């Protein structure tokens, strides 16, 4: 029981301290935001011209 607990804790730590998954998620959100803004104004253009 104690052993198992130790093991899980250890694993998360290794995974967490060097992980950049938050960074990956952030840049994806950023990219998505850029694309959505671009496409919205593009539709304004298509509508008007």
């Amino acid at each position: 029981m104690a052993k198992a607990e130790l093991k899980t804790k250890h694993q998360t730590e290794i995974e967490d301290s060097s992980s950049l998954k938050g960074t990956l998620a952030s840049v994806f959100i950023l990219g998505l935001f850029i694309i959505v803004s671009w496409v919205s104004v593009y539709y304004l253009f298509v509508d008007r011209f």
Partner: protein
Amino acid sequence: MVNTAAKVKVDPRDAKLSMAHFFVAFGALALGGLMGLLQTLVRSGKFELPWGIGYYQILTAHGVLMGLVLTTFFIMGFQYAAVSRTAGTHSPAARRTGWIGFWLMTAGTLMSGTMILLNEASVLYTFYAPLKAHWIFYLGLTFVVVGSWVDGAAQIMTYAKWRKNNPGKPSPLLSFMAVINTVMWIVATLGVAATVLFQLLPWSLGLVDTVDVLISRTLFWYFGHPLVYFWLLPAYMCWYAIIPKIIGGKIFSDSLARLSFILFLLFSIPVGFHHQLTEPGIDPAWKFIQVILTFMVIIPSLMTAFSLFATFERYGRSKGATGLFGWFKVLPWNDARFTVPFIGMASFIPAGAGGIINASNQMDQVVHNTIWVTGHFHLTAATSVVLTFFGISYWLVPHLTGRKLTKAMNKLGIIQAWVWFIGMAFMSGAMHFQGLLGGPRRSAFSTYGDSKQALEWIPYQIAQAVGGTILFLGIILVLVIFINLAFFAPKGEEEFPVGEAENLQEKAPMVFENWKLWLGITAALILFAYTIPFIDIIQNAPPGSKGFKTW
């Protein structure tokens, strides 16, 4: 990054010159801020300027003071201090050079400013021909530009000395970045110097009768786009190389930071046509090529975003944060030196997205010369850049004056940034929406003969006045803090934070310091992007235009 020449404290003699720059910069902010407030009030339709003062006169004052004076003086003062801190105290010769540059710029500012006040130069800060100002206005601008070259030469001298004393070693990151920005500025200002010296000055002096408008605008925008990167790169210096130290983390990668600065040097200049997409007389093929080159700067911009997120996440996880975004919460939100520039960084997300829209040919038809554009650069320059500059001055000013950033001022700094953010959300947000509805920029209040479309804009103009009023409060707060830190804060030692790279074994490749190579590629790209269209513009020039005074 390990270097022996660097001192932990900026030498007091260098500090004095930096502070001289900051006094002019914050003076410009005070005056320019008042003009900004008046502009939004006029545009709301509820207020008229007294004593026959013209809207376009105060708009010129605002653009020149904010866009040219505040930025150039702050940047030169900051970079001068950053080089002194990281590459070692400036030599007496370099310092003298810096002072000469400073006085030339100040004299030029006074000349141009006087002409604006005398209502002889309401030509807006882009001084587009055929609007014609008094020749002293153009001469003053020449002094500002030449002065900035001399001022920048001081930084280059000290960088060169460091390189000579440390052969084979990569220079300190902040010095390297400062020199990249100075070199980009010198290459870029050649264009504006050319139009002022060879076209606008002779024309305003009456030596020639007419001016070729397209050539002068093309030379202006050869300078105008790198101008915005000249504002931005010092903010990036803070984000890449200073913020990591402030939060107690590490620079994600020293080499990546250098590479992104080099890419900015290469791709900031051969792109001016994206400001002239609606201009007749330029071959569309060359506009297309320059738009492609423009989109190249998205690469270093996203590299920057990635490496900043990574610095924050690494730091947060080292503090035990878990989950996808747990690191975000453990950042030092109570430290103005971090929070104020952070709000600037966050604002760069909508600002950058707007920039990609502006540079896209079709979408530029939607937003060109609308108040959307003004909303855009009040996010980039007037929020991302200036909030970062404010954040820098909260530790740099006390560092230079031998004082301390007190708890109270730290708190006021954070309040200031939120006030600015809220004011700007109103003003810039309303500008963006009004622009999408076709509202023009550079326009005093008008209902355009009660046209239905123009009436739709009025609520947005009122929102801009609300935002402008909140922003003006922000200006008062930052001036209070600046004056406190310069004259009244308790004596003490305030740190000049300089970040360290995460991986000290990773030595930056020396090829980054190969100026022949990078200047060569810069020149090649400029020649490629401009030679043929320029010949075309000259050969097929329409008759020149005489000058106009519309005010």
